[in-house]
């Protein structure tokens, strides 16, 4: 789905485990990529498959179900059925699937008895346990105007997800699905919470909603956020600042 995944596992040199995770991400790509003409997601978008068809996997059902809930929860801001998709349809669940697949990978690691890890899929981070020095993981938040710099650093002990939405290298690639206009108030939005799939969706939503979205986010226990405005102001909630080290 046009992104990269880094896998950092503490105290394990089990190569087969890495292979298993890589295989999982390739499987996700095969099923969910809107770039692939014949992926189930592209066929769903074109109407060749219906969500109720027998051939639809439980994974796809799970993603469709949660995306549907999120569209309601976010008052239509996060709506995977309203986005221009690379395959020409209006259905692009990438914004959810990326975080969801990493969350699933984290579960797999947990199931293998590995508590300490750091997974990063295109800037969306899932932390487990503690880092290599048995300290809380430290995650830098990209500075929106400086590709090599950080705007701040947060730290925490897993399970903890850190997701950031914004206009970085790809340019203004997030539009408000309600009117199709690109987002201009904010440069980026970051959400911290227990689940990466939701944190990712919430970060996108917060980015679209603007600063006021922090009040919307407050209605979701366990999640907190911060935004960076286009003119360089960082606006964070008090809860978010408890994760900050700089």
């Amino acid at each position, binding site marked *: 789905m*046009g992104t*990269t995944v880094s896998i*950092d596992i503490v105290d394990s040199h089990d190569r087969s485990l890495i292979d298993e995770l890589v295989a999982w991400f390739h499987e996700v790509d095969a099923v969910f990529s809107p770039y692939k003409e014949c992926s189930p997601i592209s066929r769903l978008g074109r109407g060749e498959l219906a969500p109720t068809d027998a051939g639809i996997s439980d994974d796809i059902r799970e993603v469709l179900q949660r995306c549907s809930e999120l569209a*309601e929860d976010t*008052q*239509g801001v996060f709506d995977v059925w309203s986005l221009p998709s690379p395959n020409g349809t209006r259905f692009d669940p990438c914004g959810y699937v990326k975080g969801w697949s990493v969350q699933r990978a984290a579960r797999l690691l947990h199931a293998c008895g590995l508590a300490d890890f750091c997974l*990063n899929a*295109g*800037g969306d*981070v899932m932390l487990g346990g503690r880092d290599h020095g048995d300290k809380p*993981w430290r*995650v*830098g*938040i*990209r*500075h*929106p105007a*400086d590709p090599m*710099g*950080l*705007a*701040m*650093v947060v730290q925490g002990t897993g399970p903890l997800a*850190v*997701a950031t*939405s*914004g206009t*970085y*290298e*790809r340019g203004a690639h997030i539009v*408000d699905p309600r*009117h199709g*206009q690109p987002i*201009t*108030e904010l440069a980026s939005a*970051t959400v911290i919470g227990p689940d990466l799939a939701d944190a990712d969706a919430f970060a996108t939503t917060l980015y679209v909603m603007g*600063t*006021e979205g*922090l*009040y*919307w986010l*407050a*209605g*979701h226990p366990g999640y907190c956020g911060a935004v*960076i*405005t*286009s*003119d*360089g*102001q*960082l*606006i*964070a*909630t*008090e*809860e978010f*600042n*408890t994760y900050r*080290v*700089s």
Partner: protein
Amino acid sequence: MNTSRNPNRRQPIDPLLQQRRQAPATPRSAPLPPPTPAARPRVAAAGASADADARLAALAARGNGKPAAGAATKPGGRRTKPARAAKLAALALSAVTTLGLAGLFAGQDGNTDSIQLTNSATGVPLITIATTATTATTAATATTSTTTATTTAAASAVSPGANAAGSTTVATAAPTVAAAPAGVIEGTYVGASDSNRWGVVQVQVVYSGGQVSDVQILQYPNADNKSVRINQVALPTLISEAISSQTAAVSTVSGATYTSNSYKISLQSAIDAAKTASGISA
């Protein structure tokens, strides 16, 4: 933690100021306006770490019985800043809708000049909207403003639902038209529905005895669902500061949406170089 490290930290933003600062909502089809200096969060002078109840009480007290400092107090203030009144009204209506509160239009006898919304569970005053108009017109103005928050003409048709004879009363967002309370015919008046960034808002107002006796929400964005939760939890205190670019020892970075092809090409070349340098055929 480590909040003392940066002297710019911990500048609170008053949630109500945040609400007020919302410019008139943009019509759905128009591009979002670029941020202007006036639209930036304003930083409140006090109230940094007050808990939710104290904050709400302070907000209520600030507007109780007299126009709030900095609010629409000057002559014509509500006319020149309809968005502020609209936002306050929307906030108030949100509270009414989502918390199921008793919306007490205090002083129905017209002697007071404020609207107070009280949390029926705790008795804590939530929001007080102070105006310079009489109570009846205050309510009408607030309602009308809400339904016209995003219309540029600031005019909203209010049709008298109970008056089937059908002479349509036209009210505007300006208080001047609404300021004829004595002559209002009893009945239910439906406001025009209007879209803002959050959805469609439509209310109706019930007049009896020349006074507003009820305001009912016909449509409100997600009125029965998530906005309930947002009002049940304490509004977060927002803290604003200028960001600077920095480097630090971190395990990973959030927000790096690298253009993946470049990333892969570069990564592959590095791998190739490493293999070549190590005498391994790539």
